[in-house]
């Protein structure tokens, strides 16, 4: 697993205690997500990866899985 994915997973595991979240697993389908988590998740990736998540990025599809979050960050990080 890439380091970035590990960081994301580590963050999410605070909410999903004792649960081994897979890269492709849909966290929304798991029923885990509430607005506080959503908020913290967005804040976390902005801070951790030095990017700005803007309105257009705030799409559920960008946050469903570890892989998708990772992809969003990759798009946002200046090359």
């Amino acid at each position, binding site marked *: 697993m890439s380091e970035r994915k590990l960081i994301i997973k580590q963050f999410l595991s605070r909410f999903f205690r004792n649960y081994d979240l897979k890269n492709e697993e849909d966290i929304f389908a798991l029923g885990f997500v509430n607005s*506080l988590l959503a908020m913290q998740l967005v804040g976390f990736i902005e*801070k951790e990866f030095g990017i700005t998540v803007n309105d257009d990025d705030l799409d559920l599809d960008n946050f469903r899985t570890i892989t998708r979050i990772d992809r969003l960050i990759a798009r946002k990080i200046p090359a």
Partner: protein
Amino acid sequence: MNHFGAIGSHRFRDTHRSLETVQVDPETVAPRDFEMAARGRKPRQVKLLVWDLDETLWSGTLLEGDNVQPRPGVVEILKSLDRRGILQSIASKNDPAMAHAKLEELGLLDYFLYPQIGWSVKSSSIQRIAKAINIGLDSVAFIDDQAFERDQVRHVLPQVMTLDAADASELLERPELMPRFITDESAIRREMYRFDIERQQAQETFEGPDEAFLASLEMKLTITPARQEDLQRAEELTERTNQLNSTGVTYNFDELDRFRQRDDHLLLVASLDDKYGTYGKIGLALVETSPERWTLRLLLMSCRVMARGVGTILMSHLLLRAREARARFRAEFRETERNQMMKVAYRFAGFKTVEERDGMLILENDLEFIQPYPDFVELELS
């Protein structure tokens, strides 16, 4: 409250601060005793009064062996404020065990949430209490007989209103300590916060996924059309809730009553109970229901139920009803400094911005994916 983790970047830093100091409406920030005062505003409302003990709550100094007794009128003040729904706590430099025992002996201990008795500076004690209760420092007042202590608090926490114990007899007359309404929930507010303390302790000791913890609470959410007797509390909610308010708009009793009686509007109230007791009425939704299109004008949730997942349930309920009515679903959203979390919640619930008018965003949900009701809450609709 519990897990406020990393929220960091620029845009979110303000929100992070507001997570710790929730519920401060600029409208209720007061002229009196307050440097940031502005003209023509309502006096701010104090939601928490923090007491010093020696020579403030009681006469005498406990550690000097005095047989301390409540100062004249203090017991009546404690009881009155409690009925008004104003929370009370203690910041005292004292021996914790002795002071607790004394308060218990005087029959007063139960009036105080998260009493801080020890040797910390008082500003830290006040911060801890406000954080534990999850209210903004500008809703806090502190009463102490010593000018030094009041100055120390004012210096570190200029938002906190400081009061001289010598003026205690006037406390009940102060406008900041007079809520506009005393609702049935005011009188049991302290008790509801005490349930929160028990819940938090349970959560801290609970091992396992959050979902399982939520299930262990045995929550029951009730969503009903607002009745007239719900409206005082509804108005109170619109005034007390800032962070989880979708438009930053507050409505008064009469406005809400008119909406309630109109056929083309739906005004819903949500209340929550769990095995520890009731949270009371914690959510409000106002929807305009034209045949073709529903518009969510206001959605708000008390921050006491943050991270319980019930906001999502209320939203799903509205979306499902609109789908059933074969209507499109839009929501008005006005960004405020404090409701960023609500914005993220809307976006994650599938809303997309379709229009912007005078700072008001119009969001639309295509109703294709609606978050299913979770198993961990029993839902009662009527």
